[in-house]
Every structure is written in C-alpha cells, then in structure tokens.
C-alpha cells in the first residue's frame, strides 16, 4: 500500500516537473539523442522548439492564471471596457513571426543535410512485406529476410504470457528478456563510420522503416523507391519498428540494426555468403516426408499462423481456413500456386519472393498433412525449384535476391 502511494506521489511529482523540462535526460520520457550526427541535430532541434513552447506556455498560462486570480467578480472587480488595440495586435503577430523565422532557419539547415544522399559508401535495399523486411546489400549481393523472432511471435499470441523468461524456461535470451517484440530472427548488420544509403520500397502495402536512434524514418511504397541515409558512429544494437499501419501484424514488424567495426562486418558478409550458398543447395536434395513436415510446422508458425491461426481454422470472413480447405486437400498445383503467387486483391501475399524452395515445399507438405488434412502428399524442394525456373522464363525474373525482380517502376527521389 505504501509503495503504491509513493508511486502516485512520484507520478504527481513527475507531472509537476513537466514544465521545467527537467526530465530531458530521462530516456523513457523523451526522444533519444541517437548515434548519428543527424540524430543529434534533430534532438537539438526538438529540445529547442520544446523550450520555445514551454516559454510560450508559461507566458500565456501565467497571464491567464494571474488574470483569473486578480480579475474575478468575487473580488468585486469592475470590468474594464477596452476591446481593441492595434499596437498590441501587431506586436503579438510580429513577435511570434520572428520566433518562427529563428526556428525555421536551423530546421531548414538540418532538413537539407538529411536529404543529401550524395557520397554514400554502400547501399542497402530495404523492402517491406506483410510482415517482414528484406535486406539486400547491393554491393555484395547478400540478401535475407528479417522478421519477429519466433519466441516473441509465440509470446504475442492472444492470451500468451509476454514474460519471455517465464514462457520459455531454460531458454537464453542473451540477458535481453525485456526486448519483447523488439527482437528479430536476422539482424541487419552494418559497419560503423560509413555513409550507408538505404533504398526503401515495399512489395504489398505501404510500410515505414523507422530506427529512432538513427533518426531515419521513410515510407516504403510499393512501386517506388525512397532514399535515406545514416552514418552510425557508435557500435551497438539499435532497434526500430514499422511506423506505417500495414495491416493485421503492423505492430509485430521490428527492426534490429547491429552496427559493428568494418573488419567484423567484412567477416559477417563472407559468412553470410557461405550460408546463402548452403541454403540454396538444400533445394537440390530429396527430403524425407517427416523432415518436411517438421520444418513446415516452423515455417507455418512464423509465416502463416497469424492469419490462418494455430489450428489452421482461419478467421471466418477474413482469413480462410486451411484445415479441410479445397486448396490444401485438393490439387497440389493449385496449392503451390496459391502459396507462391498469392491471391490478388487479398491479404494472401506472394511467398515465392519471401521463402526459400525448401521452406515452401516444407510448409505445403505440412499444411497437407496437418489439421486433419491427411492427404499423405509430399512436395519436394526440387519441385518448387523447377517451378520457379519455369516461372522465371514465363513471367520474367522472379528469383529471390535479384534486384531486377523488384516492382520498382518509378523513382520519386529525383536522383536518377
């Protein structure tokens, strides 16, 4: 009881301190300074305009409070009769105008710097999907997808426990239990001290790539490419989120940027290339049915479950059921086509770009054998691979990781 009282006392104290701006250093209450020169300049602008607002507020509310105390009828005051003064009107038009000009100049200066994309040393293309990010390192060809970490994905299901340590006893979260919804499976690794150009686009709806510590937020718009840049000065992990409403799982699309020294980055790129080659080779061998089902369950939980639900029952009217559905129990080709190419005009997206051949084969095999869909069918990664080759000759390049396949029809950045 005492502790809750003191908590309320503390809260009221905090509220009392608000006008003083004394909480500027309390990270949880204010914009972080961030780790780039731009983010620091943005922070400075933010604090400057904040203090201007506080000053205006103190002046206006101060006069009001004094007036409410002095000029009340209960004190027997007789009202004055003035109701016009051109001089006063001019003063309180011109003074704010001067303050605005004083604010506009530094703001314009920072804005011009933010929009200067020249002399970048490397480029990363960031594509938004419902609901994951694809990162393509245009200089080295490394490409991968990044989405909410599997444990967090479990914890955020309806009625689950968000305390990760409790929900997954014995699992190590690298001492980062408090990063609920802020952890991804594959981090974006970047070098420090390099001007990195980000190219933003999206495959389905509009997303927005936002990392507050880098003061970087730009909409990812399907069919267009937006530019942005960051030069990170300090190694570390910087977390962000999708900022533009992008459908059901908009709140579950985190971003993790790991900034590392250049040598470490080079090693990481080399390792990533090896891993990508190994991954591609997965499609070339025959898989056991059980292995496909087991892998497929994981792929399902990461990619399909949020809409089609844990038991494949879907949400009537919005997301069709997989359990007992015509697609998942009927013709295999229709099923493969639905998963790979999506269904136009619905939220069912095109997974051919997002998942590997092995993952697509696994998840289809799983869906055809789970939820009472006991078809006994097996779909091999090689089958998907051959379809994809066919696709690429029929419908143009549709291979994952190829920049040419992106739906970039226009560029509205004006730098071409």
């Amino acid at each position, binding site marked *: 009881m005492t502790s809750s009282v003191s908590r309320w006392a503390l809260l009221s104290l905090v*509220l009392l301190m*608000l006008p003083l701006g004394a909480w500027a250093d309390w990270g*949880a*209450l204010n914009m*972080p300074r961030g780790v780039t020169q731009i983010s620091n300049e943005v922070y400075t602008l*933010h604090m400057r*305009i904040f203090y*201007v607002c506080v000053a*205006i507020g103190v002046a*206006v509310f101060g*006069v009001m409070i004094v*007036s409410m105390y002095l*000029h009340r*009828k209960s004190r027997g*005051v007789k*009202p*004055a*009769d*003035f*109701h*016009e*003064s051109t001089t006063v*009107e001019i003063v309180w*038009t011109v003074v*704010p105008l001067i303050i605005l000009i004083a604010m506009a100049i530094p703001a*314009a200066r*920072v*804005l011009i710097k933010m929009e200067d994309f020249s002399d970048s040393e490397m480029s990363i293309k960031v594509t938004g999907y419902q609901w994951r990010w694809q990162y393509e390192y245009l200089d080295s060809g490394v490409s991968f997808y990044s989405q909410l970490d599997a444990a967090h994905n479990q914890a*955020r299901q*309806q*009625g*689950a*426990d*968000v305390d990760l340590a409790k929900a997954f006893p014995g699992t190590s979260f690298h001492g980062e239990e*408090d990063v*609920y*919804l802020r952890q991804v499976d594959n981090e974006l690794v970047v070098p420090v001290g390099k001007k990195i150009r980000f190219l933003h686009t999206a495959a*389905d709806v*509009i997303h*927005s790539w936002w990392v*507050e510590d880098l*003061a970087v*937020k*730009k909409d990812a718009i*399907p069919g*267009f490419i937006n530019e942005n840049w960051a030069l990170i000065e300090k190694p570390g992990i910087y977390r962000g*989120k999708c*900022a533009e*409403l992008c*459908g*059901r799982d*908009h*709140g579950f699309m985190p971003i993790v940027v790991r900034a590392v020294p250049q040598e470490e980055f080079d090693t990481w790129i080399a390792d990533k290339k090896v891993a990508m080659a190994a991954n591609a080779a997965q499609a070339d061998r025959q898989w056991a049915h059980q292995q496909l089902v087991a892998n497929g369950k994981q792929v399902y939980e990461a990619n399909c479950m949020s809409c089609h639900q844990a038991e494949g029952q879907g*949400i009537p*009217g*919005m997301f069709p059921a997989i359990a007992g559905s015509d697609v998942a129990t009927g013709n295999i080709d229709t099923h493969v086509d639905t998963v790979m190419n999506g269904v136009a*005009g619905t*939220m069912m997206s095109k997974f051919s770009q997002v998942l590997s051949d092995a993952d697509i084969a696994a998840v289809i095999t799983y869906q055809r054998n789970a939820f009472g869909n006991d078809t006994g069918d097996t779909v091999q990664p090689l089958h998907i691979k051959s379809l994809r080759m066919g696709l690429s000759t029929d419908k143009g390049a549709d291979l994952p990781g190829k920049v040419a396949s992106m*739906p970039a029809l*226009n560029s509205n950045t004006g730098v071409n």
Partner: protein
Amino acid sequence: MSSTDVTHHAPEEHGHDHDHGEHGPAKGLMRWVTTTNHKDIGTLYLWFSLIMFFIGGAMALIIRAELFQPGIQIVDPMFFNSMTTMHAIVMIFGVVMPAFVGLANWMIPMMIGAPDMALPRLNNWSFWIMPFAFTIMLSTLFMDSGGPAGGWTLYPPLVLQMGDSFAFVIFAIHFLGISSVMGSINIVATIFNMRPPGMTFMKMPMFVWTWLITAYLLIATIPVFAGAVTMLLTDRFFGTSFFSAAGGGDPVMFQHIFWFFGHPEVYILILPAFGIVSSIIPTFARKPLFGYDSMVYATASIAFLSFIVWAHHMFTTGMPLAGELFFMFSTMMISVPTGVKVFNWVATMWRGSMSFETPMLFAIGFVIMFTIGGLSGLMLAITPADIQYHDTYFVVAHFHYVLVPGAIYSLMAATYYWLPKWTGNMYDEKLGKLHFWISTVFVNVLFFPMHFVGLAGMPRRIPDYSLQFADWNMIATIGAFGFGFSQLMFVYIIVKCIRGGEKATAEVWEGARGLEWTVDSPAPYHTFETAPTIQPATITR
C-alpha cells in the same frame, strides 16, 4: 409547451389550403421525422452526436483496454485495427461535425435574428441522411469481412485489401459527405440571405463568422474527398489503377488528395469551437471580445492556410526537398493566426470581472489544453523533428489534445451555455462543475503520457507494445476509463435539466450579449418571425 402560444400570421401570398394558424410542433414521432424547424433539427443533430459520442467512446475503451498491458488479451489485432479506424470515423463524422451543425442550426438563426434556416426542407434531409449512413457504416463491423481496418485515412493499397464490406464504407462516406455539403450550403445561404437590415457582416457574432468560414471549407473539400474515395472504389471493384503502381498509378497521390481534404477538415473540427469560446469568454468576463476584427481575419487566414499545408502529414513519403521546405514554412505560419486568437481570448479575460460557471470552466479548459495541443503542433511543424514524431503516440497526443479538451470541451461549454436557453431550466451548477473537474483530471491522465511514449518510440495503431512503454500505457488506460465513465454525468445533467430545475430568465447569464438572449427561455418554437430592428449601436455580439 410555451412554444405553442406564439401567434403566427400566415403570409398573404400563400394561397395553399393547409393550416397556417397552428405552428406549434406536431405531436409524436412524426414531429421529428417531418420537421423543418431549425430548433428541432438542431436538437436531432445534438442527440445524434451524443449517442455517437458514446459509441465512439466505447470503441476507444476497447482500444485502451487492449493496451492496458503488453500482450494480446482481449481482441484480435484485426479487430483492434477496425476499432482505431471506426473510433476516428465515428468521432469525426458522427460526433464533432454533427454537433457543430446542430449548434449552427439552433443558434445561427437566433444569433442573426432570422426566423429559420434558409432551406428548411434541405435541412431536414441533411440530418436524416446521417443515421442511415452511420447504420450502414457501423453494420460493416458485423459483416463477414469486417469493418474498415486500414485507418480512417483509408490509405491504399492497404485499404484495398478489405473484403466486400469496403463498398458499404464508401457508400456511407458518400452519404455523410452529401449531408455535410447540404448542411453547409444551408448555413451559407442563411447567413447571406436571412440577416435583418442592420446586421452587417462585422456585427455578426464570432460563432456565425467561424461557421460561415467552416461551411466554405466543407463545400470546397468534401467533393475532393468524395472523388478520392470513388477512385478507391473503382480501384477495388472495377479494375482501375489510380493508386496502384503496377498499373501506372501512385499510392502517394491518394495521400495528397486525401490530405487536401483532410487538413481543412481538422479546421472544420476546430473553427466553430473558436466561435463558441469567443462567445462564452466575453460573457463570463463581462467584457467585450478583444480584437473582434482581428479574430475574423485570423479565422479567415487559418482557413486559407489550411489549404496549403496538407503535405505536412506526409513528410516521410519521400517528397522533394523543395516540397518539404514549403510545407514546413507554411505549416509554421499557421501558428501566427492561431496565436492571435489565443492572445485575444487572454486579453478578453484581462481586467474583466470573471465568474466561473461551468461554461466558462470548459472554455478556459479549452484555451489552456487547446494551446498545449497547438504547441505540440508547432513542434510537429519542424520537419526534421516531425520525421521522428510522425506516426508515433506523440501525434496521437497532439491531435487528441486539440480534439478532446479542444473540440469536445467547446461542445460541452456550448451545451452548458445554451442549455438554459433550449430548455428554460438552469442545469445543476454543482454537478456541472464536478463534471468539468473530473473530466479535466482524467483527460490529462489519459493523453499527457502519450507524449512520453511517443517520443520514446511507440508507434501509433499497434495492438501490443514492448515492455518499456507499459507503465504509461497503463496510466493512460486508467485515464481513459475515468474520462469515459465521467461523461455519463454529462448525460445525467442534461436529462435532469430537461426535466426541470430553476427557471431561466431570457438573459440567463449576467454578462450575456447577442440576440439569442433577447428571446424567452426556453426559446419559442418560432423566433424572430418579424425581423428585429438593429441600430448601429445595438450590441449583437
């Protein structure tokens, strides 16, 4: 009903055979269905918006209940998105706009000394479209494909993923738009044509002025919005590609068109509030409004500027630098006329002889908390900082400060201010003051913490959040439930006042000026059937 004893002389030129002698209200339900009386229609609008206020509020409480603590406990994320979308649509189109139109119906004819609105049958129609439009809109929540869940801004391509109930949403929006445009035409026609001799433009009360300008904003922007949603409809159902890059269109074009409507729209939601507060503060300060002329010019400037700032909602969409600079400067400019208004209100209070009845409390609450929202708006105008603020709870805090303790407080102030004129009875002053203080404490507990979580990085429109935002979200939810349930007091006070109470005089308030205070309380069913004589010295505002 004292209104029945008003004698009425049928105009001689009307040779119709229906009865002109009896012009009290008809009895029963049909009175309300067929009425062309501005006071009846005003009452209908006000009750409608009060009902919608509780529907929209219930949606807000579902949102806040889900956000009480991290994790998904109560609703599916898709339904959560429907709630944020519908809450906005209901509150904007179903609460604030109809309430202002209701006040315009009741008060504008009485303020300018006109017998009724210029187009009474149109008036009936513009109200009765609304309940049907909202029934269609809300019914989508019970359809298979669910209510709209892409945000009230209806951005494509997301909104185009909606199922077939999307067509109902567009249909309802069209009807709401028709209703608004008809209401606006009526207000413009009334103000231009129904003023008695001597009631010059610069003698009109500020509420009439602000509504005249608001009506023009509506007439100019609603058709733009109608065009935008029609393009969405054809993109969704008829294979066009206005907003799809794959077909040569541009999703960002929708945002430009939408906000060309949407930004004037936010002034539509606040200009009549300025008019209300400009009426109330002089009354209770017992001193004329300071700087009437500059108030009129400031309102007109805000309306003009509202058309050239729309892209400040879009600073992260990748506009060219020149565009970003232009919209930053034009947005900052808006704070000048808005500042003039606030300074004028303070100057009106200065050296007045103030008393603090409930309408005055709500009006002062409006000035202070609207200014807080205005100041965070100035922060949002600084583009580099806006790129950080954009789509976070900081923005949610900003627009709720200008809309809840802003627009909604002005509506409550107006209700308490004119309720004695409408009902003939004084409301319960003690309860009114209690309603103000409870609301004011909770509204700040609700919205102030949103500044913090927004700056610390919490995006808007998310059903679940990471743990560092947990404390402030819990506090905000407590404030939401406190604020929501304390509005039941408002209903109780209104009903109690209608049923009886101390009889109100014609003037009602000691310092009240203007023509509406020269007629009896309650206002007779027909007022100013003979135009009042307005001498140059007559005080009309």
